[in-house]
């Protein structure tokens, strides 16, 4: 199925845009904005508003229409977890039945990142949005190391407690600092020959499964994820691993 943005008629391809141009406000800037949109592949591009922001900078609001489309059927999405997500009780049951031991999970907000609310949402007792965190899972031993944990400290700790999985939270993304930090973490693991020993999971508001897998993680979780998702992924992966041996 071919799809296009929808304004008020199917396939009209209508999109709203806003942006700044580093030029003074005026007819020439507006025309530059229009041409820019044409170069993006818009057919009817209309600058509906502009204002001067500062010397040499101007702001534009535009509505435009395009014939560019997406083939919806061809879209593959690989989320870390599928349709089926275990509840806390289900998770613990599966652990008891299939693994027969406690699962150890270590997590932290790494590098200089101090945004602990996200990792706390996943790990702390009280959880988030009516989803309990991993600490409350009777069959999971969860260690939340908190904020600003250096990558090597996190690995040391995971080795010490013999963790099954390591959770890395990264919220600050300016200048791709999260990418650098997440990459460093994997490199450190590899350098110490520990990559295969752990299930390694990243999370954060701007992180998706795709990005995380590209960077060498087993999975990634973004906005709207809960302990349930993380537990499901880890347990299933542990069962798989067990079967591989």
């Amino acid at each position: 199925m071919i799809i296009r943005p929808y304004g008020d008629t199917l396939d009209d391809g209508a999109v709203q845009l806003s942006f700044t141009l580093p030029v003074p406000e005026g007819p020439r800037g507006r025309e530059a904005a229009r041409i820019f949109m044409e170069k993006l592949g818009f057919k009817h591009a209309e600058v509906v508003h502009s204002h001067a922001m500062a010397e040499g900078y101007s702001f534009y609001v535009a509505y435009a229409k395009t014939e560019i489309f997406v083939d919806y059927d061809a879209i593959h999405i690989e989320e870390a977890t599928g349709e089926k997500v275990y509840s806390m009780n289900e998770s613990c049951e599966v652990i008891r039945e299939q693994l027969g031991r406690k699962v150890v999970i270590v997590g932290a907000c790494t590098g200089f990142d101090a945004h602990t609310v996200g990792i706390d949402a996943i790990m702390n007792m009280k959880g988030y949005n009516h989803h309990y965190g991993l600490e409350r899972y009777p069959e999971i031993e969860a260690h939340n190391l908190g904020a600003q944990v250096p990558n090597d400290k996190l690995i040391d700790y995971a080795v010490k407690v013999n963790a099954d999985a390591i959770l890395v939270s990264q919220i600050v993304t300016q200048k791709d600092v999260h990418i650098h930090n997440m990459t460093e973490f994997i490199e450190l693991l590899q350098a110490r020959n520990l990559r295969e020993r752990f299930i390694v999971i990243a999370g954060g508001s701007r992180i998706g499964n795709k990005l995380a897998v590209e960077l060498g993680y087993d999975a990634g979780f973004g906005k709207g994820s809960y302990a349930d998702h993380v537990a499901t992924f880890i347990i299933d992966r542990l069962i798989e691993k067990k079967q591989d041996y």
Partner: protein
Amino acid sequence: MDMKLNLSEAKIARARELAVAIVNPVMEFVEAHTSLTVERAALRLAGADGADADGVPVPNLVVDQLKGKLENGALLYYINALVKTGETVEGLNAKIAGGLRVDEIPLGDRGAIEKKTAERIQAFAERVKRNRAHREAKLVQYAGKNHSPMLYLIVATGNIFEDVKQAQAAAEQGADVVAVIRTTAQSLLDYVPYGATTEGFGGTYATQENFRIMRQALDEAVDKQGRYIYLTNYASGLCMPEIAAMGALERLDMMLNDSMYGILFRDINMYRTFVDQKFSRMINAFAGVIINTGEDNYLTTSDAVEKAYTVLASQFLNERFAYAAGMPARLMGLGHAFEMDPTIKNGFLMELAQAQMAREIFPEAPLKYMPPTKFMTGDIFKGVVQNALFNFVSQATNQGIHLLGMLTEAIHTPFMQDRSLALENAKYVMNNMADLSSEIQFKPGGIIMNRAHQVLDEAVAFLERIEQIGLMDAMEKGEFADIKRPRDMGKGLDGLVKKGDEYYNPFESFLKSELGLER
């Protein structure tokens, strides 16, 4: 309701007295006249429908045949034809569409005609009463599910089938009222197009079939959402009463319907308009349809600070005209609008004052509050803020019908996402400050109180001036919206007919008696 503004009861009463004095002479004229569209409306109520091969509607065909002999009404001939041909209304309509001239059928037995008329009246009354009962039952079934104020959204794609999708989406997202905006200039057509339509500009044709299609689509949404959804259209323009008739038959719930809008803003002749509005309002009143009056339009051309009093004065007149058509206050969606220049210091305070004033003066009316339009620009982000303040004032003053402001007001008729964002804005603001109104009081002698007092004073003074010269003279002189409308000019004057001694319109009599207007 808290009365916060300390408005003078005496002045309010004085304004109402003046409205009576202004409207009464107009109603005398109205009583003595009918119009092409009033006749066509009566025909529609009796069952006339359909169109000929050129798209000319059956009611028009009938009335055109009777040109020159309409002083006694069109109904007589139509009913006579029914009696004489022995057809059902459908059968007769088809014949008329095929060329049958009802004016050429000799008038038959009066008794048979009256009996037939009584049957048609009964069929009409039953259908409308069934509609009312249905609406009322749903309102009871889903009581408490509508927002307060009711959230009102428009659809305006030009294509009824596209409109349906948009309307259902709006319902799914929380709309209480869906209005199908009419295509540009339908108000100037002296007929109502027939059938489903897919080609309109800035809106969709109002046709009975479009009404039916949309009603059905919204009825599905009603039960799916567990919330009654009011359907709105325009009983306005040269076919005002006909559209009211169609709305009554198809269970519309609201109608834009103003006693003077057409004169001022569409240059429709004033005699014609006054005659048409009365009959349309009787139909609306009988059908339990809430009218939305058009005071907001004053402020799209004049200044909301300077001319606020014209809005209030018009509300008093619309109220009076509506009472004169047998309409109860709870059906009077008197209009006003948030159209103050956003650059005005303390503009918000004045707006709050005016909205609260309207609330206190018309405590039972489900006031219709219009969003910012004229000062909306292409800056959609600023537009969102303008709409947020509008939502705020509306909730803070307990308005009845809240037209949602669109962030793209200055750009295009709404996209689906524009409506979604409008609902999100309103629902958030209104819930977040739900009970503010009962929490705050206004400082005596402050900006807010003074503003309300001033507008009321100005409105009384204005009504006094109108009362002295008479409403028609006042409109000739440009007292309203600075627009001068000579009484013998404007569209549709030639469609005005002085009632003859034998004028026959039992639907009118029936409505009058139902509405308690018969002396």
